[in-house]
């Protein structure tokens, strides 16, 4: 017999709800003031929103890698940000060498495809080695152990790239066909690269959704994520499915690395850290372990982070609000963890474990 327990409201809860309410009031009040002042035109809002959508698409692609691996191993692969960085980095070398040899100018579209292939292959190789060397031997160890290993692996990879390629920021070569803008109506226009990022990300996410839903391997992935030993009893090679999961996540991360460096045109050994953290935030926001959640979380975070600072803070007279975008993103992470730890589309943890 289970007796009813009245949930006691304690001071901590009350305080947290007050903090939440204050933040909400700040957001609503700030937005109202900003819009009332009318400092920004519709075109500027539009630009911010499209930029947010593009950035959010990249977050979503990376977030899928976190969420897929979590779904199957119940482990946060903190080295995923370095899988992203590695792809972007080696993709950069492909881009510069093709640029120098003039190949890029002669066959720009083929060149872009090659950059993607190189980057995605690199990311996949890093991820497969990581799984084989660092994670597989620790399967069955307490959950904290692979987590610490993942953080260690993340630093290891960062410093390997730093050791080989130095600490400088490298400027990404300019690719002529993705420069410029598409005019829309009136003063509205949209940057080509942003269109490319959004469409490419959408296509890859659609591919992933179809793969997981309809292919034999995709269904086996879902089966393994529910119960590894029963999956083995079906004849599913669990290790192989886990590797496929890493491969899928890494391919998306490699592609995200290329899109990211097309957008920001800078490559360094620590470029994975912030986007990785943001993508992790997006994955938690959407409900970790849930791929549609990761997509939604990524897009939402990208737009929130792009529009948020200006919309919420400018009206309050805060100078240079855009500098605070990371503060806004991570405040949201903390708020989500406090008020809805399962994320937007997340299920209860107890149900996952049952």
């Amino acid at each position: 017999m289970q007796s009813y327990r009245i949930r006691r409201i304690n001071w901590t809860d009350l305080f947290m709800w007050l903090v939440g309410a204050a933040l909400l009031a700040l957001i609503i009040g700030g937005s109202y003031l900003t819009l009332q002042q009318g400092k920004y035109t519709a075109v500027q809002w539009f630009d911010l929103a499209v930029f947010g959508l593009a950035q959010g698409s990249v977050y979503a692609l990376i977030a899928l890698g976190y969420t897929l691996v979590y779904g199957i191993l119940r482990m946060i692969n903190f080295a995923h940000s370095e899988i992203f960085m590695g792809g972007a980095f080696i993709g950069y070398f492909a881009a510069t060498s093709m640029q120098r040899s003039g190949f890029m100018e002669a066959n720009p579209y083929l060149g872009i495809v090659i950059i993607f292939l190189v980057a995605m292959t690199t990311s996949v190789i890093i991820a497969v080695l990581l799984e084989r060397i660092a994670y597989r031997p620790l399967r069955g160890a307490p959950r904290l152990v692979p987590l610490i290993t993942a953080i260690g692996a993340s630093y290891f990879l960062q410093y390997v790239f730093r050791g080989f390629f130095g600490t400088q920021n490298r400027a990404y070569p300019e690719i002529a066909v993705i420069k410029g803008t598409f005019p829309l109506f009136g003063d509205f226009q949209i940057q080509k690269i942003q269109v490319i990022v959004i469409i490419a990300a959408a296509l890859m996410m659609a591919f992933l959704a179809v793969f997981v839903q309809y292919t034999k391997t995709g269904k086996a992935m879902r089966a393994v994520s529910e119960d590894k030993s029963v999956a083995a009893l079906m004849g599913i090679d669990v290790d192989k499915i886990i590797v496929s999961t890493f491969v899928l996540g890494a391919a998306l991360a490699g592609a995200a690395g290329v899109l990211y460096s097309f957008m920001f045109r800078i490559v360094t050994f620590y470029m994975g850290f912030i986007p990785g953290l943001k993508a992790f935030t997006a994955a938690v926001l959407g409900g970790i372990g849930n791929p549609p959640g990761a997509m939604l979380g990524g897009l939402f975070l990208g737009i929130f982070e792009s529009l948020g600072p200006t919309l919420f803070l400018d009206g309050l007279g805060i100078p240079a609000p855009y500098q605070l975008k990371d503060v806004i993103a991570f405040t949201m992470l903390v708020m989500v963890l406090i008020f809805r730890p399962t994320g937007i589309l997340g299920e209860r943890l107890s149900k996952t474990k049952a």
Partner: protein
Amino acid sequence: MSILSIENIHTYYGNIHALKGISLHIEKGEIVTLIGGNGAGKTTTLRTISGLLKPREGTVKLNGEDLSKYKAHEIVYKGISMVPEGRGVFARLTVTENLEMGAYSRNDKGENSRNLERVFTLFPRLKERRTQVAGTLSGGEQQMLATGRALMASPNILLMDEPSMGLAPVLVELIFDTIQQINKEGTTVLLVEQNASMALGIANRGYVLQTGQIVLSDSAEALKSNPTVQKAYLGME
């Protein structure tokens, strides 16, 4: 030659010595049951046969071939399927997807659709619910699904772990009738049960396990009339 023979296996969970030298054999076409109380080692025996656990000593032989070099997922390809304890359906997959997972080891499309037809004939209820997510099924339906899923691999030997657990008596009858039918269609069955009277009712032979050892083995008829078994497992004084 026995289709399945187990020779003197010792299986451990960490340091816990769960099976202390179990030997048993199953002939083609039989229903053999393992009965015994909680913690006697029934489930451990099945998990050792299916390869989820590796014995520290002893061998499991299928048609004379030692299975110890195979992993659990490879043993399915050898023709051994298991219906795990607690059914173990994939709750977020649909009924059809669960059955497809059962056929993961089989690539013959014709065979798979024949098996699917067979499962839907055995359990018409599953056909009605085929687009439903397995987590929304009742306990009995989940047991049907787990059984059907194991059949999708066209097994020669079916291992069943406590199929009656948590089911209403009428469903237990249905499941046991189905086991008999599956057996008549040519599948050898190793049945682990706490419900000893039901199990001995359909089995040819039985083994009684106690704390990791076989204490009795005989024909089902003889076990039913054995006073020790009657007292300990059939609830008769």
